[in-house]
Structure formats: structure tokens, C-alpha cells
């Protein structure tokens, strides 16, 4: 007898013992047929080297014992997520996700739906046999109404167990898929149609056109408790009633192949060109660490005021940290941030006992004023009544940040007013020109506001000179 060389499948299927061509599938199971159809399409289209098969959990878990192509085993239901990523990092790969009904339409339904919606470049082969195979005959999302399984022993009752899920019809609501079809392997004529469909799904991958979905109605004699012939008959006579065969969508002709990506800079080119960066901090153990806290309502520019001071400290080569309130706090209610300026690497970035406290509302004044260290300074908006007495040795200066900003026509610039107070009172020990530059830099994205804020800063300094007098 002449030996026929296998192409696309391994010479022997070691899953069922050494040197055998028997599969691990039961007699009359549709998986073996579909395996062969996928193999034929892969080989006929010359895609064997390019193919990455994503194997599911279910009876198809052992696909890699058969398919002579790159193989990946995915966790239960995750093949669509795994396949999405493979093609994104290997755009030349032909990705096939081979999944059963429990894997694809129960645990993995969201991944199926979302990957179809993204139009992932992937051919999905969906084996629908209306039952769980590997785990031993439990109800599947595609189990027919009234059908008895291990977990629907009295028959699937749609009132409590829902109806069979129509995956093709569901995916057909989405815009991105290129090809959606339902075929069957229950008889020879149907197998020939299934082969054409699978081939088309692979052609779409070969041509880089997008997402292709082939549902295959497939008999499972063992778990249906039927002979192979009767299981095939069940597919034709009952499953096709629920899941009619046919192509729901074929946009192959219109779909355009994906364009090659444009060249992009390397991270070094991207991050290290353009603006001149500040030098790193230098160690200066003699420098007395300064701890500042900025507090107020969200929207008052508290966080950006803190960044401005931190940036100015960086210009003086100090170690600097900025730690904000975040999450829901940031989106309403109180806002605060801590800034530490140091001559050595910073330990705790949260400021519990500030040397300088900036308060732009009453609640934050009342909450934090008691924490200021003796000899410290609190700059408090003049709208805040100072009913709570500051600790001994703490200087409190009231700055008309909110009202002055309104008066000057820029209510959002109350934080710039506060910066002026920090500058004029020498509260940060930082050079005024550095605070000025940091303020300019904070409007990098809105350069038209730079001049305006410089003018506002000047106005605020004048106000302070008039109302507060000499810096400390």
C-alpha cells in the first residue's frame, strides 16, 4: 500500500497513544470533521506556517495533538481575548480561535462579543452541539428548549433557564464583523458547505480583512445519548429549527485590508527630544526640609498650585514630592495636596505637620490649622473667618485670593493669588523667578494665559504690599 504523507496534521495523534491515527473524539462526533476541514483550508491556502491556533477548554482542548501549526491553549472561555492579542502583536499571523458552545457562548460570551465588536483579525470556529461535552453532558447556552441534560434533568425550561442563545444573530448586530455564517457537518452536502465557509474565513485572515465567524452545528452522540446516525439526524431536524443554516453577513468584497502602521519614534526619541529638562536633585544635607500642605475645595486649583511650588523647587535642584488627594475626593468636595522640599531623598511624602499651610476654604482651615508646627505659617483666604485659634507661634496671614481673582475678572486664578502670597511672604524659600517660571510652565498647554497670569501675579503682589506689609 502506498504511504500517503500527511500535510497540515501530525503524522500520528499521540493523544490516544503512540503511533495511532485515531482521534480522542467519540464515534460520530463532529469535531474530527471540522478539524479536517480547518486543516484542508489552512493547507490549500498555504497558511500552515502563518497559522496560530488558539485551542479552547472543552473537547477541543487537544487540538494541538492534530494541527501541525503554532498552537496556544487558552483558559476556559478566554480564547477570543488570547487570539485578539496574538494578532495585535503578530499582524502577519493567521489567528484561528476554535471554541465550543460552553467556552464561547457561556463563560466566554463577553470576550466573543467584544472581540467581534473590535473587529479583531481572527477566524472564530464555533462548534455548537447544544451540550457540554468534556464535562459530561451538562446544559449549554445553546441547549434546545425542553432538552434533557445532566443539569436540566427535567428538560430546559426557558422560564428559569432562558432560551438557546443565537450567537450568529447576536454578533450580526455589530458593525465590525466581516463574515458571519452558520453551517453544519451533519451530512456530506452540509460538510461541503462548511468547508467553503471555513475556507472563506481563513481567506479573510490571509488578506488581513478582519473578523470572521463560522458557527458549525455538530453532532455529539455520546452526550446526547444517541447513535451517530441519530445524533446527525438531531442536528438536521431539531437544531436547524432553532439555528437555521445560512450566511448572515458577507462583506468580504467591500472589506479593505489593514494598512501597514506608519513608522514611529523610539521611546528615547519621543521622551528625550524637544524641551530642555531640569537636572536631577543634588544632595544637600544642610538644607532644612520644608513641608507644605495646600487645602481647599476641588476646582480651586489647589493641586496645580502645589505642582507649581514643586516645579520651582526642582529648578533649585531640591528633592521634591507632591502627593494629592485623589479618587472621588478629587471630583468634588475637599481637595488637598502635600509638597515636601528637601536636601536629601524624601521619606514620608504625606505632610501631617506642615511648616506652611495654605487654606482656601473654611473647613480645611478648621481641620488643619492645629497641625501647623510652631514657627510655621498659614496663608488663609480672607473669606475664611478665623474663629478657630491657630497654635502658639503660628503666623496666620489672610490673603484675598478668591475675591481679588473675581475683582480682576479671572475667578479661576485664585490659586495664582495664593502663589503671589507664598512668593511675597518668602514662605517657600524659593526664588521668585523660579516660582514665576513654574507658573508660566503650568500654562504650557494654554500659552495665551501666560501673560495674563503674570499680570495677575503682579496685581496680587501689589495687593499684599498694600494690605499685609513686610514679608516675614
Amino acid at each position, binding site marked *: 500500500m502506498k504511504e500517503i504523507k500527511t500535510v497540515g496534521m501530525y503524522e500520528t495523534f499521540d493523544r490516544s497513544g503512540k503511533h495511532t491515527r485515531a482521534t480522542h473524539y467519540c464515534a460520530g462526533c463532529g469535531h474530527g470533521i471540522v478539524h479536517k476541514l480547518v486543516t484542508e483550508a489552512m493547507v490549500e491556502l498555504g497558511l500552515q506556517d*502563518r*497559522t496560530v491556533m488558539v485551542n479552547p477548554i472543552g473537547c477541543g482542548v487537544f487540538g494541538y495533538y492534530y494541527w501541525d501549526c503554532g*498552537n496556544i*491553549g487558552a483558559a476556559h472561555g478566554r480564547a477570543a*481575548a488570547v487570539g485578539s*492579542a496574538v494578532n495585535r502583536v*503578530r499582524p502577519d499571523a493567521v489567528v484561528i480561535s476554535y471554541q465550543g458552545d460552553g467556552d464561547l457562548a457561556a463563560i466566554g460570551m463577553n470576550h466573543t462579543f467584544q472581540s467581534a465588536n473590535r473587529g479583531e483579525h481572527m477566524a472564530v470556529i464555533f462548534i455548537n452541539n447544544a451540550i457540554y461535552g468534556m464535562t459530561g453532558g451538562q446544559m449549554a447556552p445553546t441547549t434546545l428548549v425542553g432538552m434533557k441534560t445532566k443539569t436540566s434533568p427535567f428538560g430546559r425550561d426557558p422560564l428559569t433557564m432562558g432560551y438557546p442563545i443565537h450567537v450568529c444573530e447576536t454578533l450580526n448586530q455589530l458593525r465590525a464583523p466581516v463574515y458571519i455564517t452558520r453551517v453544519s457537518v451533519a451530512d456530506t452536502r452540509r460538510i461541503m458547505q462548511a468547508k467553503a465557509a471555513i475556507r472563506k474565513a481563513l481567506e479573510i485572515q490571509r488578506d488581513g480583512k478582519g473578523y470572521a465567524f463560522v458557527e458549525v452545528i455538530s453532532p455529539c452522540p455520546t452526550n446526547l445519548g444517541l447513535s451517530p446516525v441519530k445524533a446527525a439526524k438531531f442536528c438536521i431536524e431539531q437544531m436547524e429549527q432553532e439555528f437555521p443554516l445560512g450566511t448572515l453577513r458577507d462583506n468580504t468584497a467591500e472589506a479593505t485590508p489593514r494598512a501597514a502602521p506608519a513608522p514611529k519614534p523610539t521611546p528615547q526619541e519621543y521622551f528625550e527630544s524637544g524641551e530642555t529638562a531640569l537636572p536631577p536633585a543634588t544632595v544637600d544635607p544642610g538644607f532644612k526640609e520644608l513641608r507644605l500642605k495646600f487645602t481647599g475645595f476641588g476646582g480651586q486649583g489647589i493641586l496645580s498650585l502645589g505642582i507649581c511650588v514643586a516645579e520651582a523647587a526642582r529648578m533649585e535642584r531640591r528633592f521634591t514630592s507632591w502627593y494629592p488627594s485623589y479618587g472621588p475626593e478629587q471630583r468634588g468636595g475637599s481637595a488637598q495636596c502635600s509638597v515636601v522640599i528637601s536636601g536629601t531623598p524624601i*521619606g514620608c511624602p504625606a505632610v501631617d505637620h506642615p511648616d506652611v499651610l495654605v487654606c482656601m476654604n473654611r473647613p480645611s482651615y478648621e481641620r488643619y490649622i492645629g497641625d501647623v508646627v510652631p514657627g510655621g505659617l498659614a496663608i488663609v483666604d480672607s473669606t475664611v473667618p478665623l474663629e478657630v485659634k491657630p497654635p502658639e507661634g503660628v503666623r496666620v496671614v489672610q490673603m484675598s485670593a478668591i475675591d481679588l481673582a473675581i475683582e480682576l475678572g479671572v475667578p479661576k486664578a485664585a490659586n495664582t493669588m495664593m502663589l503671589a502670597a507664598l512668593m511675597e511672604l518668602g514662605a517657600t524659600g524659593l526664588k521668585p523667578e523660579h516660582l514665576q517660571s513654574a507658573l508660566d510652565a503650568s500654562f504650557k498647554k494654554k500659552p495665551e494665559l501666560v501673560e495674563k497670569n503674570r499680570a495677575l501675579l503682579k496685581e496680587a503682589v501689589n495687593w499684599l504690599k498694600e494690605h499685609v506689609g513686610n514679608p516675614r
Partner: protein
Amino acid sequence: MTTKFIKGNEAVIIGALYAGCDAYFGYPITPASEIAHAAAKWFPSCGREFLQAECETASINMVYGAASAGALAMTATSGPGFSLMQEGLSYMAGAGLPAVVVTVMRAGPGLGNVYPEQADYNQAVKGGGHGSYQCLCLAPANAQEMCDLTIEAFRLSVKHRTPAVVLADGLIGQMMETLTLPEKMCERPDTTSWSVQGTAKTRPNLITSIYLDAPTQEKFNIDLQRKYATYTEDVRSESYLTDDAEIVLIGYGISSRIARTAAEQLRKEGIRAGVFRPITLNPFPTATLAAVLDGRKALAVELSAGQFRDDALMHLARDAKQYHDIPLCHRMGGVVVTVDEVVAAAKKVMGR
């Protein structure tokens, strides 16, 4: 030398890009979202892949897929999302896949809140999914390390063919500090011998974690444990003022920084305190810690119920035959332990 003043979360992505990470898959969650924001902007700008997944389960399985295809891939999340990712981490450990997961811890259990905690220690360090596996685990304490340890996580994960976790917390992720950009790009690892790339050369390769035969599965587990035993060569830690210390504060991440300020304060008050901080939590720097402690008084500082302290004790007792107990100074629920609290606890330990 280029510097940037950025959030710890953003520094992660700079590290990832310099490490050669090809793809980021992620799902938004506070306080880790800035990592996804930075990736969404900077990955495509440098010709890398960014995809917002439908959930954390998808994110981690996408990372699994990209890693299977021989690419360097990552994701980032926080507690609730990290819990969902345990399935994928177990599969990656089982399939021998390198990848990096950054988790920025928030308060739990359950929904908890978004403020800093360190309570996901065991999940990150011990292997939070099913099976006898563990992930490499690195614990950054500042923005520079969010970058540098992400690079190191990729290096170690490729070296050992296993996922690496960068274990940060909300405070380290949210705060801004100066980052000095890495000096050079990392070399691209060759994954052709094992990955599945859709090429003739990689056609025979298979990525899976199934061994149906129990003795074969057992052998795989024995080999895994052998591999974990080799991690000790990559151990990293930092000691601060420990040489003459009469008490050593131990903690990782943000807790170590609070301990650092507390140690400085204690010294002003006449107590010679030092700080020991593991930079790698797996491998745990047991030998260095044992040498630093050397029978001295110790105090563990953490933002959790004692998971870190207990692990340190386990390592010390099992491998260094030291210590039955170490007192704990901790807060939970998103309350950050203060310098004052650490100082007071250390004084109590010293009987002053």
C-alpha cells in the same frame, strides 16, 4: 540626563517602553488608571500596541496571548481587578510565560475604597491563583523605582519565564516625583525557541499548561519549585541607618518611606533607629534581613493586618532561625500610618 516630574503611575509606562514592552492591555480602575492613561498615549506614540480590554479577565488573557506570541506584554490594575487576574497569572505560571502586572493597592476587602493599603501582599507574593506557583514580586517606593522596577520586572520575568508583579500602592502611584529617564533601551529578548509567532520557525511550538498524566504534572511542579529556589540570586533590598541601629523598622513601599522619616525623628530623640526595606518581596531578602536584624529589636510597619510582618517572620524563622515575633505598627482601610504613630510604637518597643 533627562528628568521628568511625573506620577509614579506614569513612570511605570516610561519604564515599560524602555524595557521594550510591545503591548499594554488594561481596564480602568482607581488608583491605577493613570498607568492606562499614560499607556494609551505613549504606547501608540512609540509604535507599540495599546488596547482597552472589556474587563480585567480579558486584560490578563490578552497579556497571556501576546506573551504566547513571544511579545513583551503588560497590564496594570488595583485590588478588585488583580483578583480577577489571578486566573491568568496561574495559567501564565503554568505555561511558562513572561509578562508584567503592576498592581497599585487600594483598601479592601470587597469594593473597599481607593486609598492606599498594602493588604494584597499574599495575593501578589504567594501566588493568588490556583496551583503551587508564585510570581516574582518587586515593591517600588518612589517614582524612579516605578520605572526602574518595571524594567527589572521584565528582565526577571523573561529570565525565569514566569510573570512578575510590581506591587505598588495608591500613594506611590498617585504622588509626583522627579524621574530620571533610563539611559538606554533594553535589548530585545529572543523568544523564538518557545513562542508561537505564526512563522515557520515557531510552528512546532506549543503554549499550554496541561499535563494529563499525574506524575508528569508532578514533575512539572517539582521543576517549578526548583526554578523558584534559584530566584535568590536576584534578591534586592535597601538598608538605611542600620549599622548602629538599636531598633530596625521593616517595611516595603510607602511604609518604608514613613519608617524612614520616623527613624530620622527617633534619632533626634536619642533612639538609634534604622530602616530595612525589601525591594524584592519574592525573592524575599531573608539573608540580608537576618544579618541586619541580628537579634536587634524590630518593628514592622505596614498598611495591612500583618501579612508582610508574618511573611518576614516565616522567612526569618524558617531560613535564619531568628525571631518568634515582631511587633506591628499598622493602619488599614486606606488610613495611612503616620510618622508620629511609628515613632510612638518604636519608643514602646524600646521601653521609653
